């Protein structure tokens, strides 16, 4: 994890402004959060950049209504208010109406530790797993966010979730949306690092003989990619920057024909009543390189 000046949200503003210029089907819906990032887009496209105020049920309802008229809505706010608070709107105003949208979140799990529990939504991906047809992208770098946002917006009328974070990897990887990428090859198991967890996973496994897969798209889960990475041992560790174990079921399903073991690492479900900094929270959750090394080594050896 490094703290570059340029964040995924900065990239989101640039990419979205360009998409609004290029594609008259696109519309951006905001609920105050993020509105300050789009002054030029809002004046260039007053009918397609809509800030509904602090009204998150309306945020998703408006996205659904826009899609009913054939537009491609992009809705953005913090994950707590994009997925959790209006979850029934996600279920009914998007899924049930049979329309698509691109939901782009920020501050999903632990981006603002000093903000506390009210601004943390580590269960967002698990919640979307209760609904059909969602594509979930977790970029690990602004350049990946750019690629995945363009992919998501261009993907017809499908349901796409792009989870942005302030935590990011030092370098962008040559990702293909929907496919896991092999970053390192080894013999004693597979560690699947999701999005911004990659750098910590690479550091944690530097001295371990394991394959490291990188996932910037987690739904649909690239089951074939995981199976192809399995060598002699079907032992898999998932390292996810949201609720621990979120992708365990997907991993089990991918490996259902093999005797296998899966360890799911991520943000614990228990409330963590501390403030402080992002590194402090990663350490407390066991998601920094030192803890990851110990947990992965204990599981695979």
């Amino acid at each position, binding site marked *: 994890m490094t703290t570059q000046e340029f964040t995924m949200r900065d990239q989101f503003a640039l990419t979205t402004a360009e998409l609004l210029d290029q594609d008259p089907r696109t519309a951006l819906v905001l609920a105050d959060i993020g509105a300050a990032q789009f002054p030029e887009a809002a004046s260039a496209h007053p009918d397609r950049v809509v800030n509904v105020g602090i009204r998150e*049920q309306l945020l998703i*309802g408006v996205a659904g*209504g826009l899609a009913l008229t054939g537009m491609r809505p992009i809705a953005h706010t913090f994950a707590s208010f994009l997925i959790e608070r209006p979850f029934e709107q996600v279920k009914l105003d998007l899924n049930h109406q049979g329309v698509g949208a691109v939901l782009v979140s920020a501050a999903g799990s632990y981006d603002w530790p000093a903000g506390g529990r009210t601004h943390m939504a580590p269960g967002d991906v698990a919640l979307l797993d209760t609904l059909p047809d969602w594509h979930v992208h977790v970029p690990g770098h602004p350049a990946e966010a750019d690629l995945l946002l363009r992919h998501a917006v261009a993907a017809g009328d499908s349901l796409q979730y792009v989870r942005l974070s302030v935590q990011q990897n030092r370098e962008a990887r040559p990702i293909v949306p929907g496919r896991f990428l092999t970053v390192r090859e080894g013999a004693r198991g597979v560690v699947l690092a999701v999005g911004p967890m990659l750098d910590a996973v690479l550091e944690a496994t530097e001295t371990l003989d394991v394959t490291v897969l990188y996932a910037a798209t987690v739904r649909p889960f690239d089951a074939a990619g995981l199976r192809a990475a399995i060598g002699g041992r079907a032992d898999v560790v998932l390292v996810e920057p949201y609720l621990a174990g979120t992708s365990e079921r997907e991993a089990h399903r991918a490996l259902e024909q093999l005797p296998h073991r899966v360890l799911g690492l991520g943000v614990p479900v228990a409330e963590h009543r501390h403030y402080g900094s992002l590194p402090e929270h990663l350490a407390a959750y066991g998601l920094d390189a030192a803890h990851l090394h110990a947990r992965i080594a204990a599981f695979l050896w």
Partner: protein
Amino acid sequence: MTSEATRTPGGFDELPHLISLMTGDEKHSPAANSTLDALWVLYDRVLKVGPATVDAPDRDRFLLSKGHGPMAYYAVLAAKGFFPVELLPSFGSYDSPLGHHPDRLLVPGAEIGSGSLGHGLPLAVGTALGLRAQGLHAPAVWVLIGDAEFDEGSNHEAVAFAGAYGLERLHAVVIDNSSATHGWNGGIAARFAGEGWSTATVDGRDHEELYRAYTAPHPGRPHVVVARTEPKFG
């Protein structure tokens, strides 16, 4: 449709018979009937949409938000030829497109699926915004809600925003049969008026009053028609 050429043979007097073809929804039948006149006048005289134009980009949209008690809605859609009258007796059965709450993917002519309360008005706001963004300024967007449904906070998000935004092509019909548990002190129309909407409160059984309220000009503002009916009409 308003023109005689596209008017289908079914008339208002036929609706009670059509409703009687649907059975098994006793719980919702009072609500179904409270919407009957308001729905009929809309589909018969106001909405520019018909069976031939259900996919036309410039059609008027009607969103039934109060999905409880959809028998009157189904009867009106059938009378107007959106689907065959023969479907009505299947109401609520396994293979029927006609559920006790409507599903837009199953019911020809239904703009939204509804049932959970408080979703139609926000969807209607988005629909009005989407039409405007595409330069489609003629189509009207209508949404029907109930006075008890108005309890849901999502409605108030939509009412405040639409008023502030001056969404002129947005229209709401509130069927007020005094079923809200705590009532609306000072009336429902006041909630809309306070947010800048044009409002009219009429007898929800009087077709001429409904028609005049539906067609009243409201430049620069969204418009609500509060249609009052007898409490929990059976």
